[in-house]
């Protein structure tokens, strides 16, 4: 009611001129009317737009025992995380198509409903609520960490399981009800990189990390673990996700006498850092977390990236795994389909999202297509996906161990497992 009056009377600019007293009253009234019409047209067009926007039904459809099973997906198809989210979507869609082609789950097809969080946590919350009103039974969650954190309260409140594809440990430490994650945690990646350095006899290490949630978490977890591996961090420099020059960090690294440079960060900045690392004539090993384990890094880094040591989920080295390796066939069948369709080997994001779909499908097979049933099944699930073998428990919602983390070397754009990893996979 108040709003109307405001709009109606907001004649501020038009109603009152400083013309003669004679026609003031008249003009004021006219101004008011004019404003009212303007406002009503505005509100009407707004209502129309909103109606056009709400293509989804306003009533909550109850999940019925027949018809397709609705699974939601929130990912970043626009904004800075586009390259990640795009591959997430490709991976999830491929898995859904494969399941549907082989008859679906318990005889029912899967209907994947994809929402774009525009790399913005606010939009992720809107997306979550949209998916809930669409009546989905489970969700393949965001790839953008802030989006994962933003939807946490809603996930808990709606009691619908979300298998997130963001690499944020804090969402599962401690394990929260209904929240799972598919990428390896920064903790196990950090531990595996430390183990690699120890095996190489490296003890003095410099670190550069970006100030994103991922970069900060990775660095702090690695620092806390370092002493167990006899490693000392003798320099640490931070940069922003949008940084483009690293002269100062690299100069400091050069003079610090470090035996290796460890980089934690995700985004285009790491490519620039690599180019400048080589340009400055640094020859010590350059190590990256799994954020760089795809052609999204190796392609633009080009020759400069050659020789960089990059952690990767086990899926990243699929072609190099011995045929005796348990996850090999799962990885390669996913990878071959992906490569045939998209023309390149799947980056980890595709495995992460495809794996999440496989988990949901398996849970439905075991316990039926209800959120509670899926959640109960996930809490005790052991499953092999493109990222390796997960063992979830009520206290472990990540399910991977260091055995599913490979240490690779960028060899002309291909991630080739190091001897360290070859020994591990057998």
């Amino acid at each position: 009611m108040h709003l109307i009056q405001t709009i109606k009377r907001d004649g501020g600019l038009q109603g009152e001129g400083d013309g003669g007293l004679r026609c003031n009253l008249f003009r004021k009234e006219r101004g008011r009317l004019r404003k009212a019409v303007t406002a009503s047209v505005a509100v009407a067009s707004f209502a129309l737009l909103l109606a056009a926007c709400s293509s989804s039904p306003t009533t909550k459809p109850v999940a019925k025992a027949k018809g397709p099973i609705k699974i939601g997906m929130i990912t970043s198809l626009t904004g800075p995380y586009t390259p990640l989210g795009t591959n997430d979507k490709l991976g999830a869609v491929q898995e859904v198509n494969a399941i549907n082609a082989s008859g679906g789950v318990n005889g029912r097809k899967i209907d994947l409903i994809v929402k774009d969080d525009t790399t913005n946590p606010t939009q992720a919350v809107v997306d979550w609520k949209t998916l809930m009103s669409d009546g989905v039974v489970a969700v393949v969650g965001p790839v953008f960490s802030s989006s994962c954190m933003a939807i946490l309260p809603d996930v808990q409140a709606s009691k619908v399981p979300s298998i997130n594809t963001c690499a944020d440990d804090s969402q599962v430490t401690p394990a929260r009800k209904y929240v799972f994650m598919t990428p390896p945690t920064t903790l196990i990646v950090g531990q595996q990189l430390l183990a690699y350095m120890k095996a190489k006899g490296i003890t003095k290490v410099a670190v550069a990390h970006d100030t994103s949630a991922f970069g900060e978490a990775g660095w702090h977890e690695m620092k806390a673990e370092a002493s167990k591996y006899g490693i000392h961090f003798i320099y640490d420099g931070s940069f922003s996700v949008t940084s483009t020059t690293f002269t100062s960090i690299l100069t400091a690294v050069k003079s610090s006498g470090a035996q290796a440079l460890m980089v934690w960060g995700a985004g285009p900045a790491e490519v620039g850092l690599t180019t400048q690392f080589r340009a400055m004539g640094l020859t010590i090993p350059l190590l990256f977390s799994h954020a760089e384990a795809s052609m999204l890094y190796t392609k633009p880094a080009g020759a400069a990236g050659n020789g960089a040591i990059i952690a990767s989920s086990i899926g990243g080295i699929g072609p190099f795994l011995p045929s005796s390796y348990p996850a090999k066939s799962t990885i390669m069948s996913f990878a071959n389909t992906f490569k045939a369709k998209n023309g390149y080997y799947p980056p980890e994001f595709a495995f992460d999202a495809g794996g999440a779909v496989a988990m949901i499908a398996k849970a439905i097979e075991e316990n039926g297509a209800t959120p509670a049933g899926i959640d109960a099944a996930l809490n005790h699930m052991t499953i092999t996906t493109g990222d390796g073998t997960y063992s979830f428990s009520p206290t472990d919602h990540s399910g991977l161990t260091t055995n599913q983390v490979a240490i690779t070397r960028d060899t002309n754009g291909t991630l080739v497992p190091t001897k360290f990893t070859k020994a591990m996979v057998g």
Partner: protein
Amino acid sequence: MSERMRSLLVLSLAVVIGLVTLALPLVLSSSDVEIYVTIGLATIVVTGLSLLMGFAGQVSLGQAAFYGVGAYTAGIMAVHHWPSLVALMAAPIAAGVIAFVIGVPLLRLKGHALVFSTLAFQLILLVVIENTSFLTGGAIGLSGIPALHVGPLAISTGKDYAYLVWIVAVAVLLITRNLTRSRPGRALRAMAITASGASAAGIAVESYKLKDFTLSAAYAGIAGGIYVFFIGYISPDAFPVTLSIEFVIMVVVGGIGTVSGAFVGAAVVTVISQVLTSLGTSPSLPPDLPTVLSLGVYALILIIILRLIPAGVVGTLSDLWKKTKPSASNPVDTTGRSVLDSTVQAKDG
């Protein structure tokens, strides 16, 4: 049409619009309620920005910074167990105080130098937030923000927030309307047209500008405060420079210097971008499509709107209305004229 009929028409329109506004949260689906809240929040911010741009002739490309200051103030206080209503009230105060403090030096800058400094302020603020993690949670953000309580009443569902945000929006619109029709409002408008003229006429230009800047920041602050309780989590990612740009777009699309334009601009821009975001995500469609829609088509719509109706929706509608009633002389233009709001020179050729 007699005076009486006219008043009746106005009154009935008012009743209809009021009922629609009150009824919308009840009939909308829960995700559309979220969008409704988003539009309300944007309306609050954009009303302040429109006041600043249309009346005081100042463009701020950093309005999302004050939105962020409000959000962080309320969020940090709530996390440290302050009563949530106190935290919410502190949001506009903090944003206003910061605006006042930086406004004293910055408002000495004119035209684009001021535009630049507001943009720079936001970028600097984001860096400060990222590097004070002991307080703000840094890039990881602050989570676990408790629900808002007004006395014994918990504001928790989307519908609750829809009503809260529109109560605040109405208050903000009313304050702005009264302000623009009062003596300070006339002073501000005079200032937007010609600062030196206004100052010659005895208007304390600097002081009005500062008050206006502070008030618009306070509006953004209260919107930020509501936002943080609504979402329950904040990180610097929620306040990018592109959000500030979007607020300016809303002002211009709605119609600069018109109070209802703030609401229209916020609604039109939000709904267009929501529709575009929701299209093109279907599994069978190519993954590039969302970018084409959210960036390409959005940009095209924006360019077309501004080429066809450069004065914005409300500005153009009232111009049209004026044309149909030539007798209604109107000595004051709908748009405040400022350095940034005259016609392109190069056109003259």
